[in-house]
């Protein structure tokens, strides 16, 4: 085994292969930083070139791209607050809050180091666990996977926040978004309104970009031409190293969570990131800083998402079952090179297995080092007015969203969900529970249904299920014991209680108007969902009901509360509302006359009126932005949208 490992290392240190690995890594870094474009986009852009190389170089190139994406996305998440990829949404919440306080270097340092450890843990697991990973994956049958989803939900419950009604309603709304599309249990298509676009449900990328990214871009544009914020400086890494060291065991635990997330096919980095974030929250005594810049939140989520993306390769290589979309493309490339992953792979191609391990490990280290090097340079960009950065940012998000199906529906959905995200941000609804609800609703329903179909209720006594259930039961028992003890020592009660209540909520002062509008929209959605639910097969009703039964009364209560507290405070957000309106008009214009004309007008509008650039700088910069966007459309091989009224793209 060691001999194979060394042969593989020697094979990798061939100059062409190393060059391929680093080219892949650079592409992966860039795509990781572009919000909405991640591993899948990077790998599909590289795929055509891979076939010009020999098998080892080609695969090294893809691995370089796959393994660095979740390291470099930290930069965008921290500096701009728009998640670089869906799995770094927790980093966007905590890291951006820290960056606003001038502690960007701390956030980035911890993020990079945690990413590196997560990646190395993933590589180590691949290395040592290949002989035993097979049996582990085989032990995780549907009942165990269902229990994992429950554990995720339990950990995520700590994200609900201070305003219980809003937090729970947001989670229910997320679950409701998650059930759109094909039902797992029976042949129902839920809430598709007869649109083919919705037959597959919502894409995770678009939901993450819509809920988090669009709202951030809007507030950047609203900030206008002046520098209304402190430029972020990234200079002193010392504090970050110290924080990382303090949180080292948390990072390791988060990586283990991430590794298991990768073993489970099709659960993916997003779910395990949220689970790790929830774990960080539960294991941190003072929860008051979550949502306002908690470094441990970053450490956990970055450790987890990097570990997941690499351990995703375990089911891919051992069983030909890809763990995520990027792994699926990697699998396709393996096939094309004539490798057929499966039980025989370890004995037939041991060198290849180790080549993969080394590529991943090397990229994790070099990628993190490179991120340390470029982050200070990128941070300097924040000293230019945000409106100037927001212009390409919003267009790249459109390109990213458009990767899902390359139809107009992607752009519509981005701004529809963007509106929802904006209302949530301003109405004081936490967005994290909504995204978690969305991510977990699919696997929960699927595994519950399969489990009950195959095993009846006998699965409840399986040893694996009991072990996983202990992850929920043990913390609950410990908390109960603590609570009883605290009650005896009556003095501490008030204090503790206060702390628990304090949990996370990224709420500043919620806009009363936005809160009422959002509660109204949610109420209408839940009412409609209830009505349509009765046309489904009984088996397909369970998951929507899980969202509706608590969601409907909560939304009703929030409407009542909203009316009682109503104050016409739309004026404070009038600038942002205008921008939102412009985006909606833009979407309709793209539908009508194709992408080019509305985009040119939008760029001009953003640069001239929002960023207040001079006309000639607008001309140069705007032309560069437009050209980049067109090139991206072409590179990613999605034809740009053509107008419905004017056949022009």
């Amino acid at each position, binding site marked *: 085994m060691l001999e194979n490992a060394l042969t593989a290392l020697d094979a990798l240190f061939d100059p062409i292969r190393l060059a391929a690995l680093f080219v892949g890594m650079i592409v992966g870094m860039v795509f990781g930083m572009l919000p909405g474009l991640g591993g899948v986009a990077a790998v*599909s852009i590289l*795929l055509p070139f891979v076939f010009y190389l020999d098998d080892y170089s080609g695969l090294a190139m893809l691995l370089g791209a796959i393994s660095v994406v979740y390291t470099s996305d930290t930069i965008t998440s921290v500096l701009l607050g728009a998640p670089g990829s869906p799995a770094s949404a927790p980093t966007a919440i905590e890291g951006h809050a820290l960056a606003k306080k001038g502690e960007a270097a701390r956030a980035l340092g911890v993020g990079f180091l945690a990413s590196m450890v997560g990646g190395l843990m993933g590589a180590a697991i691949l290395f040592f666990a290949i002989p035993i990973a097979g049996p582990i*994956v*085989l*032990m995780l*049958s*549907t009942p165990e996977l269902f229990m994992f989803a429950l554990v995720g939900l339990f950990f995520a419950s700590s994200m609900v926040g201070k305003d219980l009604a809003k937090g729970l309603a947001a989670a229910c709304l997320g679950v409701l978004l998650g059930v759109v599309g*094909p039902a*797992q*249990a*029976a*042949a*129902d*298509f839920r809430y598709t309104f*007869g*649109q*083919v*676009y919705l*037959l*597959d449900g919502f894409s995770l990328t678009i939901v993450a970009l819509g809920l988090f990214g669009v709202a951030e871009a809007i507030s950047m544009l609203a900030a206008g031409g002046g520098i209304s914020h402190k430029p972020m400086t990234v200079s002193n890494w010392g504090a970050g190293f110290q924080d990382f060291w303090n949180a080292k065991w948390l990072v390791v635990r988060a990586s283990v969570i991430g590794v298991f997330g990768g073993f489970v*096919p*099709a659960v993916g980095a997003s779910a395990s990131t949220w689970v790790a974030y929830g774990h960080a929250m539960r294991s941190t005594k003072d929860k008051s800083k979550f949502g306002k810049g908690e470094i441990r939140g970053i450490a956990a989520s970055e450790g987890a998402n990097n570990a997941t993306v690499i351990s995703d390769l375990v*089911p891919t290589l051992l*069983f*030909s*079952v*890809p763990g995520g*979309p990027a792994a*699926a*493309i*990697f*699998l*396709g*490339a393996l*096939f*094309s090179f*004539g490798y*057929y992953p*499966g*039980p*025989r792979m370890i004995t037939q191609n041991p060198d290849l297995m180790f080549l993969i391990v080394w590529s991943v490990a090397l990229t994790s280290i070099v990628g993190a080092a490179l991120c340390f090097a470029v982050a200070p340079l990128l941070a300097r960009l924040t000293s230019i007015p945000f409106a100037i950065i927001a212009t390409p940012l919003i267009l790249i998000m459109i390109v990213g969203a458009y990767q*899902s*199906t*390359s*139809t107009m529906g992607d752009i519509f959905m981005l701004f529809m969900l963007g509106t929802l995200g904006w209302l949530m941000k301003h109405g004081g609804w936490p967005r994290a529970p909504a995204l978690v609800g969305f991510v977990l609703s699919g696997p929960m329903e*699927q595994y519950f*249904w*399969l489990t009950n*179909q*195959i*095993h009846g209720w006998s699965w409840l006594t399986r040893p694996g299920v009991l072990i996983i259930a202990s992850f929920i039961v043990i913390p609950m028992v410990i908390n109960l014991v603590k609570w009883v003890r605290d009650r005896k020592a009556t003095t501490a009660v008030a204090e503790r209680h206060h702390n628990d209540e304090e949990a996370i909520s990224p709420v500043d002062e919620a806009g009363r108007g936005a809160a009422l509008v959002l509660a109204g929209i949610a109420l209408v959605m839940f009412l409609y969902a209830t009505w349509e639910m009765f*046309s489904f*097969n009984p*088996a397909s009703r369970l998951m929507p009901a899980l969202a509706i039964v608590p969601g409907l009364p909560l939304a009703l209560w929030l409407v009542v509360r909203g009316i009682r507290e109503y104050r016409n405070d739309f004026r404070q957000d009038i600038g942002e509302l205008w921008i939102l309106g412009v985006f909606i008009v833009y979407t309709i214009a793209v539908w009508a006359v194709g992408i080019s004309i509305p985009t040119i007008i939008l760029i001009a509008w953003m640069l001239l009126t929002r960023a207040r650039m001079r006309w000639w700088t607008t001309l140069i910069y705007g032309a560069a932005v437009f050209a980049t966007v067109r090139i991206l459309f072409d590179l990613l*091989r999605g034809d740009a949208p053509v107008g419905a009224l004017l056949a022009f793209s």
Partner: protein
Amino acid sequence: MQRLTLAIAAAMTVGTLAPAAAQDMFAGKTIEVVVPFGEGGATFVSAKFLEPYFEKHLPGNPEIDLVSRPGGGSILGANWFEQNAKSDGTTILFTTSSTANPFVLGQEGVEYRLADYRVAYSHPFSAVAYVSPDTGVTSAADIKGADTPLIYGGIAAAASDLPGLLSFEVLDLDVRSVLGFNGRGPVRLAFEQGELNLDYQFTPVYLTQVVPSVEEGRAVPLWTGGAMENGVLKARDPIAPELPSVYEVYEQMNGTAPSGIEWEAFQGVASVTYAYGLTGYMHPDTPQEVLDAFAAAVAAINADPEFQAESQKVTNGARLNAGPDTEAAIKAALSPSDEVKTYLRDLLSTKYGVNF
């Protein structure tokens, strides 16, 4: 080095075969092959596998551009083709029964007129049924004497699972079907975990993933969907000639040839899923010369020793089909009789709860 010599040898053979008149039909052109599934999926990988051979053997050596347009269980990509395909043969829709079944069943959202399209080429995509030895079953004939209830795992009744489910109807098996998996990979995993005991896998996966289990005694192969012989899906599949076809299994069990509505429905659906599993469709107005050029290219590819060697590894030596017979068979399967349609819709809505 060996590859290179083979390639040269192949190029020389083709040079003599291709008709001179059509020599430059596609010179300098790009053919866009639309795959309505994700990159890395089985259909995309198959298209990628065929790409160099078409580039080499089509007159004028066009460049082939593979484009993946996933969404709506392949309906979005096929609808895109309906609206955007060119009629000169430079746009091809390369797809599977996942696109054909919604069309045949008249599902909502289908805008493409698949039965009107021209068929440029087709590649078999046969499947093998296998069972767990825990059931006590040792061959296809004693499947009815299984010791334990049969549990089959699948994705969705109206999609690629349809022929498998119909084969159970034809053979009158009592099978519990658990639908709702993410893909055939997770189904196979659940089989290995012992949660399911009856499964169908497509050939490339069967050869690389299931055959090792068969050798270790952890899976028992049963039958294949069969191959076309004089318009009947009865012959043994050349990919796994040691296994009987569903037709043969029925004969062994009942002593007569299968007939009736179940058989007709199975034969129609199974032929587009297995025998013509991966098919390249073209715009309805594509000129006959273009189709003839593709038929000639397919003949050249089948004769190309490099293709033969590579396909031996992946599909046990499956060959491409093209020409009028192939097109007629596919079109017939895409336009079933009203009785078959009604039977399918009834079966799917009563037994599997599909809403139409």
